[in-house]
Structures are given as C-alpha cells and as structure tokens.
C-alpha cells in the first residue's frame, strides 16, 4: 500500500483538503473510498469526520441484552427444575430472585455485545502489516490523503493538498 497525504493543523483546513479531493476524484482518477482521513480526536461536526458513521450498534447491543436475559432465565430455571430443591416455602422456579439474575445477565449481554461490536466494526485489534499512519496525528495534526493514487496524478494531488493548507505533504510506502 502507498499513499500521498497532507498534515493539517486544524479541522477547517482539513475539511478544505477533503473537499478538494472529493471534487478531484474523477479528474485525477481515484475513488472516494481511496481518500484517507486520520485524526487524534473525533471531529463529528465536520463532514470528513462523518464518514462511515452509520451503525446498528445500539440495536445489536439491545439484541445482546435480550439474548443474555433469555439465557439467564433459561439457565436458572433449567437448573432449578433439574435439581428440585424447595426452600423457604418458595416455588421451585422463583420469579423474583430469578429476575435479579436475569437482569444482571441482560446487562452483561448488552455490555459484551457492545464491546465485540466495537472490536469487529472498528477492525481492532489489527497489528498486521504497515498501515497508513503518521505519529504527528497524536500531536493534533489531521491527515488527509489518497491511498494508492494513480502514478501520473501524484504531483497534482500533492499540489492540491498543499493548496488546501497542508503544513507538509508526504508520501507513504514508496
């Protein structure tokens, strides 16, 4: 993988660069999916920070909670039936106490599902190979660039990134 990118000091200039690249897609021969954005903090107010922001995570968490709750109830009720032990005059399958365990496992199901959904959809952990990155990102810079740009368009992309306000334009993987 190779890339050409610019580092921007603030979200406004990063947004300018993002707009420039979007407008130049067909002219310079790359697609929108090739535009790379990396930052040290989320910028959800800006359009470049809103990419891939559609997720069903809340629904998946709710489903995880439902599965956790049903498993909890089933587990406890099954246990009570398979080892019938009356205590304190309570029924064999005790709704109120079982409700507590069901509740806890509902929440545990939702929590674990959220965790796994995050890991899977954010594609972490990922330690494989060299990925586009620049340590300057953690100093507040925003990286906007193009992955695998057409060879002939490299110079033009670089100059447009500079024109949008990049502090520095770099190449990656060449």
């Amino acid at each position: 993988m190779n890339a050409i990118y610019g580092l921007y000091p603030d979200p406004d200039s990063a947004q300018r660069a993002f707009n420039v690249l979007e407008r130049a897609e067909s002219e310079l021969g790359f697609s929108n999916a090739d535009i790379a954005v990396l930052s040290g903090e989320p910028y959800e107010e800006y359009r470049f920070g809103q990419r891939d922001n559609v997720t069903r995570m809340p629904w998946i968490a709710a489903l995880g909670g439902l599965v956790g709750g049903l498993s909890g109830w089933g587990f406890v009720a099954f246990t009570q039936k398979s080892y019938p032990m009356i205590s304190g005059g309570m029924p064999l399958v005790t709704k109120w106490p079982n409700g507590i365990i069901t509740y806890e496992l509902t929440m545990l199901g939702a929590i674990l599902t959220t965790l796994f959904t995050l890991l899977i959809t954010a594609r972490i952990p990922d330690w494989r190979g060299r990925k586009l990155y620049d340590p300057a990102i953690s100093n507040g810079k925003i990286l906007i660039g193009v992955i695998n740009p057409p060879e002939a368009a490299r110079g033009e992309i670089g100059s447009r990134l500079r024109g949008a306000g990049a502090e520095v334009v770099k190449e990656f993987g060449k």
Partner: protein
Amino acid sequence: MNKTPEQINKDLLRPIYHATWRFYATAAVLTALVAAAFFAWGYQIYYGIGVSGLNRPVFWAFYITNFVFWIGISHAGTLISAILRVCNAGWRRPVTRCAEAITVFALSIAGMFPLIHLGRPWLFFWLIPYPSERGIWPQFRSPLIWDFFAINTYLIGSVTFLVLPTFPDFALIRDRASGWRKMVYRIVSLGWRGTPKQWHRLEMAMRIMAVAIIPVAVSVHTIVSWDFGMALVPGWHSTIFGPYFVAGAIFSGIAALIVAMALLRKLLHLEEYLKPIHFDNLGKLLLVMSLLWFYFVFAERLTIWYGNNPGEMSVFWSTQVGRFSPLFWTMVFCNFIIPAPILAIKNLRNKIGWTVVASIPIIVGMWLERFLIIIPSLSHKYLPYNFGSYRPSWVEITITVGTFAGMGLLYLIFSRVFPIISIWELKLGMTKVEAPEVASQEAAAEQPQGG
C-alpha cells in the same frame, strides 16, 4: 497562554516516563503493608478462621464491613463518570479516568473479602454455578449468589468502560515510546489509527456503555443491601435499604474521588488540569449526597423508633446511647456535621484543601456506617440470651489496613502505565463547540492554562 496538543501530551505522559524517588518510597511502604495483609491472611488460612474476632452471634464483622465499604467506594467511578457522560457535562473530562480506575480497583478489593471471610478460600468455586459431583447447584434464591452475578457484571462492565477510551491514548504513547515500551503499547493500542470509523464506533460504544452501566451500578449496591434486607435480623429487614445503600455508596465514592484527585494533582503536578472548579463541582454533588444521607439515616431511625418493636429497639438504643453510640455519633459528625457546612459555603467549597477536609471524614464515617449496620444488629438479635459482642483481632485489622494500602498501590501502578487523564477526551473538550449556555463554565474547566 493556552496549551498546545504537544504540551498537553508532554504534561500528561510525564508520569509514565519519569518516576521520582517519592514514587518508589511510597510504593515500597504500600507494598510492605500489602505484604503484611497477605501474611495475616495466610496466618488465618493456616490456623483457621478462629484467629479472627468472629464468634457467635457476630459471624459477619470487619470483612463484610470492608466488603460493603469497598463496593460503595467503587461507585465513585463508573457511576459518576457514566452520569456525567450521559449528561454531556464537559467538566467531567479530566475527572473520568481517575474515577473509573477507583471503581475497578475498589471492586477487585471488595471481591476479595467474601473469599477472606470464607475461611477456606480454596472452596470459593462453590459460588460459581456448575454441577458438582453430588448434583447440587448453587442456591439461586440466595442473595449471596445474586452478589456473584451482580459484582461480576459490574466488574466486567467497569473494566470495559475504563479500557475502551484508553486505546487512543495508548496509540499516543506508542508513537513516542521506544524499545520494550513501544512494543507493549503497540500491542495494547490494538493498532489504533484514528480513522473516522474507529472514532465513531468508540464514541457510540461509550454512549451505550454509559447508559448500561448506570443501572448495573445501582443494582450492585441494591443487591449488596439485600444481603442484609432479606434477613429477619433487627435493623436489617428494611425496604429502605436499597436506596439507602446506593446513596451511601455514591456519597463515599465521591469523597474518595476527591481525595484521590487531590493526591494525584499534587504528586503528578496536574495543577493545570485538575482545577478548583472540578473540586467545586464534585463538592456540590457531595453536599447533595450528605444531605440525602442524613435524610436516609433519619428516616431509617424514625420508623424503627416509631414502631417500638423490642427487638429493633435494642439495636436502636445500643447505637444511640449504648455501647456503639460513640461510633454512631462520630459517624454523624464525619458524614454530616463536619462536611455539610464546609460544602455549603461557596468560599470554602471552591478551595481544594477544604473539599479534601470535608471528604476525609466522610470516608471514615462511611466505613463506620457499614460497621454500625452489621455489628450492632448481629450483637442484638431477637433473643436476649443470644446477645453478644465483637472485638476485631490483629488479623482483621492488618488485612483492613492492607486493603487501603493495596488501593493506593494499585492506583500508583495505574498512574505509571495509563495516562491518568484521558488525553484525547481532554483535547476534544478544548476543540469541541459546546452549547452556548454552558460554554463559558465548561471552557473554564477544560482549558488548561500554562506559562
């Protein structure tokens, strides 16, 4: 002049790269106390539970007091952090990680006490649901099994809540580290790069976690209260115990958080990040909880006194004018009479020293409260021939002291491995456009000021 991202990184990562001799000296003292506690526990395991002060009729004492106390302290973090996150309180940003770490450590310490109290800790797995050789499963109708599920759910949730927002900060350390440290942080940052997708999923996950963890935290201390409330013991069998315990837990949790933050601020030189306004805001919450605590104590005693049940009244009088009254009135002083006026006066509350002066007695007072819930009731059950007393042994005292040292030690180690303030959230607070009506106060709270 405002701080640049580079300066913030440098300030907040300093404790990870540099440790003073004070750090090692403090760690050595705390390690010695923890070692003493483990020795005492080993002594108890070898000679049997009889070396503790536990005896008929007081079979729950220091260990269960500590269990309830540390569960309460654990409410400092996840609950406070989650509530502030759900409310989008911008001033939370420098506070949340300090608080969440308290939760994880306090819960881990609390979880040890049932094992210590067992006397034969190698049989702890009897608590875990599994089919034994005799086909006997745990008794799901027992509140102790509810504890197992609630505490483990809360612990898993709290660890997740603490760890999720650390990935970007670990990536930040990875970018600056070298040698073994770079390798370790490369692994624990999970290959975090900061794509919009990663940020969006992380923020979404944190929002869901914040909503999920609040009812779990409330349920945990409610279920701990049901360990008592389900028993027909004078002073315990009360419907108010659930909210009473939860309010007390949040109360002690905030006090512990204020003390921890003040220590961190001083030891790690975080004066520009943990500012008086953070202590002032937490002080307001503490004042509310102090008043609420007093209300619950009054309501609990009023109904017992009005009911005039002989069994309940023997416990009541033992705490008001009898053997336990010095502890009871010390508790009232520590939890209400000392802190409430300090926290009610704005000119005192907005000074860090005074909020700490108000918080330390609360920690002591809340420990006494847990003690006073357990011991007087077990000493004065319904049948007078069964009245008894309790005196802690050196084993219990050593283990108790050791757990406080253990909390301090875990926190010290944590501050050497994790940035104690969430760096990316702090920076986000500085750049994010907040709602106009809260912007001025939050900007003042979030904006570090430097030279």
